[in-house]
């Protein structure tokens, strides 16, 4: 009797398991904003009839989860807000190559050099500042200035936010480790430390700190939340290719362990399609630049061509491991 029950249970599990693996559904692990995921998933299902199951969380948490899952991962596609998580999974050999036709939709400098992930959206690093605390004329020419003594107590950063690490990685690539470390040490002495970019954006607007290093997206979100013209801070763009104007890329990849390779590739192709990119460009949730050429971003944003980012390719920033170690050495995390 007992063994019959066990058999029945095993049978039920198997049927259940194979029902989950049915190709008519796709499992998306996402660190993007849940509202964006919901919008994309609904549109994709409408077009293809393929159901999208969503698993959401913070980027590094989900990346850690995918690494733990390894070959057993239920995920088909991973969608992020930053490229380093994708690079990390790529180094661990967990990603499958993106179809060349899809890669061709996005300028090559925003995709993985290996061709294993696709860039979708870009965000700009900016300095938010509170004009009542700091005159525009006194804004720094370079991000590197913020480690100087005159900035003591006047700058807010979120060193453990996944958005801060790419800046450090870019500094390592361009200035070398020693210079980056001494910059971080200067910053540690000067800066007020916050947990994430959201808090930095809010702190500058509230007048708790004069300036803050954030991704532009958070300022626009805060402005949307507070209502037009009710935000007390402004955005300052670093110019002339200064490292402070670095572009962060959010991307997507197909997991090598996915049992639904074809559908997963179809989803990634959809993300790069004019339709999805335009939807993302128009949304008030995201405020990111669609990377597909010819698709306009939200009209509130400074046009992408007017930005003056550093020459370093965002896709070549690496996996942030070295950046993390330097942050540790500087005592910032």
């Amino acid at each position, binding site marked *: 009797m007992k063994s019959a029950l066990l058999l029945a249970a095993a049978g039920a599990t198997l049927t259940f398991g194979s029902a989950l693996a049915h190709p008519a559904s796709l499992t998306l692990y996402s660190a993007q904003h*849940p*509202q964006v995921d*919901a919008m994309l998933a609904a549109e994709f299902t409408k077009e293809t009839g393929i159901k999208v199951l969503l698993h959401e969380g913070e980027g590094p948490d989900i990346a850690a989860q995918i690494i733990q899952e390894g070959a057993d991962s239920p995920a088909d596609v991973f969608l992020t807000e930053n490229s380093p998580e994708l690079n990390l999974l790529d180094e661990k050999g967990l990603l499958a190559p993106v179809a060349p036709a899809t890669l061709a939709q996005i300028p090559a400098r925003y995709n993985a050099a290996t061709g294993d992930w696709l860039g979708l959206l870009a965000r700009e690093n900016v300095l938010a500042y509170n004009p009542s605390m700091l005159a525009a004329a006194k804004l720094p020419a370079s991000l590197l200035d913020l480690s100087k003594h005159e900035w003591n107590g006047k700058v807010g950063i979120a060193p*453990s936010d996944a958005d801060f690490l790419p800046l450090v990685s870019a500094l390592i690539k361009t200035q070398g480790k020693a210079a980056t470390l001494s910059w971080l040490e200067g910053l540690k002495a000067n800066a007020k*430390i916050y947990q994430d970019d959201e808090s930095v*954006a809010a702190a500058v607007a509230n007048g708790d700190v004069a300036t803050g290093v954030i991704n532009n997206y958070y300022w626009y*979100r805060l402005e949307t*939340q507070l209502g037009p013209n009710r935000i007390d801070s402004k955005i300052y763009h670093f110019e002339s290719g200064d490292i402070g104007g670095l572009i962060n890329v959010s991307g997507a990849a197909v997991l090598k362990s996915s049992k639904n390779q074809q559908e997963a590739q179809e989803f990634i192709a959809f993300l790069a399609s004019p339709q999805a990119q335009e939807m993302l460009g128009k949304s008030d949730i995201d405020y990111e630049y669609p990377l597909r050429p010819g698709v306009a971003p939200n009209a509130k944003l400074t046009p992408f061509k007017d930005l003056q980012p550093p020459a370093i390719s965002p896709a070549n920033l690496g996996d942030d491991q070295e950046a993390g170690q330097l942050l540790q050495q500087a005592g910032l995390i």
Partner: protein
Amino acid sequence: MLARLRRAEDSPPPALLLAAGAASCLALLPLAVTAVNAASVGWDTAVALLWRPLVGELLVNTLVLIACVTALCSIIGVGAAWLAERTDLPGRQIWAVLLVAPLSIPAFITSYAWVSLSAAFETFGGALLVVTIAYYPLVYLPVAAALREMDPALEETARTLGLSPGAVLLRVVLPQLRPALLGGMLLVAANTLVEFGAFALLRFRTFTTAIYAAYQAGFSGAEPALLAMVLVLLCIACLTAEYLVRGGARYGRLARGARRGAARYGLGRWRNAVLLGLALFVLVTTGVPLITIGFWLTQSSGAALTVASGTLPALAQAAWTSAGLGIEGAALTLFLALPLGALAARHHGLLITFIERCAYLAQSVPGIVVALALVSLTVHHLRPLYQSRLSLLFAYAILFLPLALVSVRAALMQAQPRLEEDGRSLGLGWFAVLCRVTLPLAAAGLGAAAAMVFISVATELTATLLLAPIGTQTLATQIWADTSTVAFAAAAPYAAAMAVMSMAASWLLAQRFGVSPLRATVEP
């Protein structure tokens, strides 16, 4: 007779020992995985990671905060419990609910409320304030249950022997409160050790915020795991301290016969002052965060309108999911806590202490560590369980077992073993004794335990995000989704629903289970 009792205490029934041992091992599983993970860090890396100024800073921050929070929480918790349970305070039923209300508001919302009042709270003082508000109910609930279940005969005897009410409090009541109070203090310490959301907003850095930062910065699991091991050591220190202070004293009632309700003392001319003080206290603890939620409820800015899932059906669905998980999580946690509590309450010995204490250790590491350990355990070895509702419930049970255990243990210690023996001698089987004697006697404490676990599950985020069946949306995950896009107005209905649900839970369980049939009044 005495000899028989002693023998019974020293050799628990094998079934009980086995059940408790199994529960304890289950709680230790994620820790074992984490320890293995931490051990994979090389010696040099480990030294470089642990032997640096920031770690010293974090250690001081963490330890000083724990000491202050625990002390404050125990003073406030015992004081509030005494007023609600043992005085003629007007509107006691309402106060009893209001006093546990802070537990039902996630600490990060309280933090957010205070930080938006003034950035001046972004200090040690702010962290102390927020965490004390968030966790004093962990002392209040078990102590209130203990006060409610206390045999009035002891106090009456002390009074007849000429002790003043103050002396009765110090020499009779407080010693009886020791298991509940120390247990509550232990919970406060352990929760402070792993609190993340509140400190993140307050810019106060502890070991736990550093562990989250390490994950966020993309470190492989090994380095955060190593930092987590430091937390385990700190927790072992707390457990040892509690063990030493608690000592071997026992608090079972020896008197036969039916129990009456505990005695209440008249407040007399202090009545109005006490009422005013309590009102101010509730305003600070519950009013500030609730007013903040209320403020956001009235805001319908563009950000709120752009949220795809901000509809009433979505809200109802999320509330339903949270309530379901809360009830099932509380049931499973109590199921695991009962054998452990019974073993610790009724039997003594080194092995028993060890088994019970092990269950507390699971709470010494942050939710993210437990959740990731369970991910790696289930995905590779128990595949059908991965991202199933059952594995999520087990994660809750492991995370909140200590919470339940404190109340369960204290409740069982106060239930008279003699009544159980009477039941057995009247021919009842052990199961009948459990259902008809032990559980009803311990009802108040069990109700408190269930309420605490329910509320904790309803507000839990990290493990829910990682382990829930794909597509699950709870109130907590919806609040996270909205606040992480700076859409506070959109998060407000979910936060309000969470607060209402948790308060209802504490009222239903903590109050309904604990109404004493008879009450005696003592005039001062």
